[in-house]
C-alpha cells in the first residue's frame, strides 16, 4: 500500500477523488426526486382556479370562498368604506405595496390598486393574515376592516395592514370578472 502511494500519488488521488465525487453527485441527483415529490402534484396545480357567482352579493355583503385550500374574502363594500379607504394617504401605510397579483410589482397601495370589479366596489383578497397565517375577522378592528384575533393585526377597508405585527397587506390573487362571474386564479 505504502509503495503504491509513493509510486503514483497523483493518479491514485485523482481516481479516488473522481470516484467519490461521481458517487456524491449521484446521491445528490437521486435526492432531488425525493425532495421534489413533496411539492404540489400536477392535480393540485391544476385545481388552481375557482369560479364564483357574485351577482347576489349586495353592497355591504361579503362571502368567503375556498381557493387553493385557503379562504378568499369577496366583499362588496359600502360607499362609506370605499370613501374611507380612498381618504387614507399613502404615507400612513405600513406597507405601501399594492400586493396585487394583477398588477406589476411595486404598484402603490392605493385603494384603486387594491379594489376590483365594477366601479372598484369589490375587494377580493386572500383571507390569510400575512403575519402567521390565521384568518382575520371581517368588519372588525380599529380601522373598520379586518382584525386578526391571533396576534392583533388591524387591516383597513382596503385590506391594508395598519397596525399590528403583520408585515404586509392582505394578498390579492389573480382575478377575472366577466358579467356576474368571478374567476380566481
Amino acid at each position, binding site marked *: 500500500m505504502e509503495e503504491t502511494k509513493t509510486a503514483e500519488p497523483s493518479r*491514485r488521488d485523482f481516481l479516488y477523488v473522481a*470516484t467519490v465525487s461521481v458517487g456524491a453527485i*449521484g446521491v445528490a441527483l437521486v435526492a432531488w426526486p425525493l425532495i421534489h415529490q413533496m411539492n404540489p402534484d400536477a392535480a393540485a396545480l*391544476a385545481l388552481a382556479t375557482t369560479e364564483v357567482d357574485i351577482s347576489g352579493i349586495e353592497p355591504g355583503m361579503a362571502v368567503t370562498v375556498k381557493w387553493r385550500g385557503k379562504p378568499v374574502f369577496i366583499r362588496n363594500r359600502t360607499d362609506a368604506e370605499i370613501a374611507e379607504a380612498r381618504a387614507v394617504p399613502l404615507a400612513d401605510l405600513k406597507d405601501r405595496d399594492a400586493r396585487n397579483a394583477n398588477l406589476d410589482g411595486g404598484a402603490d397601495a392605493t385603494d384603486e390598486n387594491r379594489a376590483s370589479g365594477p366601479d372598484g366596489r369589490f375587494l377580493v383578497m386572500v383571507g390569510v393574515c400575512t403575519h402567521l397565517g390565521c384568518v382575520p375577522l371581517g368588519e372588525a378592528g380599529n380601522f373598520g376592516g379586518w382584525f386578526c384575533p391571533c396576534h392583533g393585526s388591524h387591516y383597513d377597508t382596503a385590506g391594508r395592514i395598519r397596525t399590528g405585527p403583520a408585515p404586509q397587506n392582505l394578498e390579492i390573487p389573480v382575478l377575472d370578472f366577466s358579467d356576474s362571474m368571478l374567476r380566481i386564479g
Partner: protein
Amino acid sequence: MRRGWGNRAAAGTLAVLMGLGLTGREAFGQEGDAEAVDPPPDIVVEREGEGEHAGEDDHGTPHYPLEKPERIAWSFDGIFGTYDAAQLQRGFQVYQSSCATCHGLGRVAFRTLAEPTGPYLSEEAMRAIAAAYQVPDDDTGELRPGRPSDYFPAIAPGAAGFAAVPPDLSLMAKARGVSPGFPGWLIDGIIPYQEGGADYIYSLLVGYHAPPEGEEAPPGLFYNPYFVSGAYIAMPPPLFDGAIPYADEAIPETVAQYAEDVAAFLMWTAEPKLTDRKRIGFQAMIFIAVFATLVFFTKRRVWRGVEH
C-alpha cells in the same frame, strides 16, 4: 485457484440473476401459455364475454388467447422510444369516435392532453375538449362543463346499453399482456419489449373474423382469437375502414391504422410518463456505468500488489 471462483463469480452473477428472473417471468404466463398456441378444439368453449375476465372454466385451464398478439413497431418502444404526438391525437380521435360511448377513461385528466410528452394539444384545444364534456362538480355535484383539472367522466351502468359496464380503458394497455412463453420472455426482457398491452389492443381490434368452420357465434358474441379470456367477445367490431376522417390525408383511413393509433393512445393513457422514464433512464444508466467503471479502477488500484 487464485481467481478461479472470484472471476467466475463475477461473470456468473448475471447468469444467475437471469435464472432467477426466469422463474419470475413465468408469472406472466397466466393469460396465455407457452404450450397453448393451438389448444385442442374441445377447450374452445363458449365464453361469457361481458367482463374481460370470463370466470372459471369447467374444461380445465383455458388457453386463451387463441392467437398471440401481433408485434407492431411502435414509436415508443426500445430504449429511446417516445410518443408520437400526432399519432396520439389521431388515437384520441379514434377513441372519441369509436370507444368513448361505452368505455370510460376515468384516470385521464383533460389537462394531460396538452402535455408535450403526450398528445400535445394546444391549450385552447384541450380546454375546448374539456368544456364539451359535462362533469359533476366536486362541491355541488351538479353537472357543468369540464375544466382542464377534471377527468374524463366514467360511463354510468346501463348508459351504454349493457348490463355490465364495459371496462375503463385508462390502464388497459398495462392490464393486458400475453406471455410469449420460454424463451421468448427472456429475450423480451433484454430487448426490452414492454408493449404487450398495446400489441394486444391492436390485435384485438383487427382480429375479428368469422368463427372457424363448424362453429357458430353465440348470440350477441363475436369470434376474436386474440381475446384474452375466450374465443368470443361481447364487444362488436368497433372500427370500419374510412369511418373516421383524418385531417392528415397522408394517413390511411383503415381499420389497421385506426387500431394502431388508438392502441398507441391507450398506451399513453396507461403510462403517461413513458417518454420521461426512458429519457431519464438512459442518462441514469450512463451515469451508473461511468460510476461503476470508476469504482472498478479504484478497486483494482486498492488491491494492486495484494495477494488474494
